[in-house]
């Protein structure tokens, strides 16, 4: 009985050793992931627009390692040059709840890869595919659309806002619609 207890406790402890996989080395042979996303919920016809998502986004957005790598790359590749630390500057803010081109990770990946009108440059061929996914995963964590244990902790240097981990979970509003709460009282 006692042996059984000790064994099961040991096994339980050992399960904590592998919280998640850290994948340092992206598969060198896969080409860019193909994401077919629609920017509008409207479609000419009775059915909603056709979309195809590769599903690899899940591996990135729920992985604390990828999110923290994305946080580093966000600064390295000068995303904060336009979007500041998520609050926005000459580019739109990223930590609010409005997503002009959709807040799913695939949408963000496409936004980074292809660029968007009025200033967002295309990073196709400039940032390796796996790093684009990492940055997109981090951008999603800025508005806390990911669980608390995945979002990053506080910075070592001065931080302008609470750490991603400590922000309240976000409510996503797709397509740049203005929520009632944000309207000026008439």
């Amino acid at each position, binding site marked *: 009985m006692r042996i059984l207890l000790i064994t099961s406790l040991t096994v339980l402890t050992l399960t904590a050793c592998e919280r998640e996989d850290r994948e*340092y*080395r992206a598969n*060198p042979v896969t080409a*860019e992931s193909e994401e077919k996303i629609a920017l509008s919920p409207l479609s000419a016809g009775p059915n909603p627009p056709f979309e195809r998502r590769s599903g690899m986004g899940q591996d990135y957005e729920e992985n604390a390692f990828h999110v923290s790598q994305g946080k580093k790359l966000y600064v390295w*590749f000068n995303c904060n040059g336009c979007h500041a630390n998520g609050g926005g500057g000459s580019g739109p803010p990223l930590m609010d709840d409005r997503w002009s081109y959709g807040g799913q990770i695939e949408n963000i990946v496409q936004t980074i890869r292809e660029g968007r009108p009025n200033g967002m440059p295309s990073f196709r061929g*400039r*940032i*390796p595919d*796996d790093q684009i996914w990492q940055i997109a995963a981090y951008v999603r964590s800025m508005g806390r659309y990911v669980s608390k244990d995945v979002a990053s902790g506080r910075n*070592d240097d001065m931080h302008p806002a609470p750490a991603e981990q400590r922000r309240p979970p976000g409510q996503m509003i797709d397509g740049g619609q203005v929520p009632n709460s944000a309207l000026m009282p008439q």
Partner: protein
Amino acid sequence: MKRTSFVLLLSVSLAGCQGWQSALDAHGPAARTLADMFWIFTAVLGTVWVLTLGALLLALRRRRAAGTDPLATNPAIERRMTVVVSTAIGMTFLTVLALTGISYGGQRVLYGHKDGTLTLLVTGRQWWWQIMYEDPQPNRVFTTANEIHIPVGEPVLIKLESADVIHSFWIPNLTGKMDAITGRQNQIQIQADRPGVYRGQCAEFCGLQHAHMGMLVIAETKEDFERWRNNQIASAKPPSNPEQQRGMEIFLSKPCVMCHQIRGTDAGGKIAPDLTHVGSRRYIAAGTLETTRGNIAAWIIDPHGIKPGVNMPTIQLEPDEVQPLVSFLEGLK
């Protein structure tokens, strides 16, 4: 067999006394001070150890004669013991005082900076060293990586900073360790007495590839140094043949430019090592691989196979793009 293994072990441990990365093979004033202090401390403390253990063994071997009263005192023996113990305490005090004095004198030498003309800003990064040669003339300032050239016999001031975590700068043949700490600047001076190549290593655990964070210090004559410096200040030479030309086009159209800089081209990234004269450096990947065609190709194709966790990503390259790219990089002398 036993004797062979003993000789082998002895020679292995003695091998640490010499070489291009050995604190006991001193080639500069600071390292010599440290090596001298090492030998003085080893000799003095070794002697103290032998004397103490000898006294202990003596005390264990000599037995009180059987049948004597353990509480009986003999004034003559008591006096003699008082003298011996007082002398021992006095000698201990003197030894500690002398060693403290030597240690203090050594620190004065190590941290007292002489005036020199050359100042370097060395930044520790995960997992390589960024080296900036400062100069009063802004157009003579340049940045390189993992390889420091210094003129022989001149003190060189090194300002140490860190971009991410704490690293430690250590060239065993030239000087002791100094930490590179985020948000502050430490200073250390190095000086080499004669020309040579010395290896340095990060000496503070700084993450996955801490063990592969080496650098070289190349001490050379003043003329050689000036020639090297003038070459480093210059922009990269334009490609000299069609293959290298194609390699440059590939470099400029790939993710390389997001992080690497090649002065004289459009590549202006400041995150990874400056590649303007990468072909002139003896090693790539922070002292990990010798700069050869094959090693450059291997490093580009699979950096994580060589240094798992390194910040260099795996990039999409077509098979026929590798050779021109390597040819271009190798040509950046």
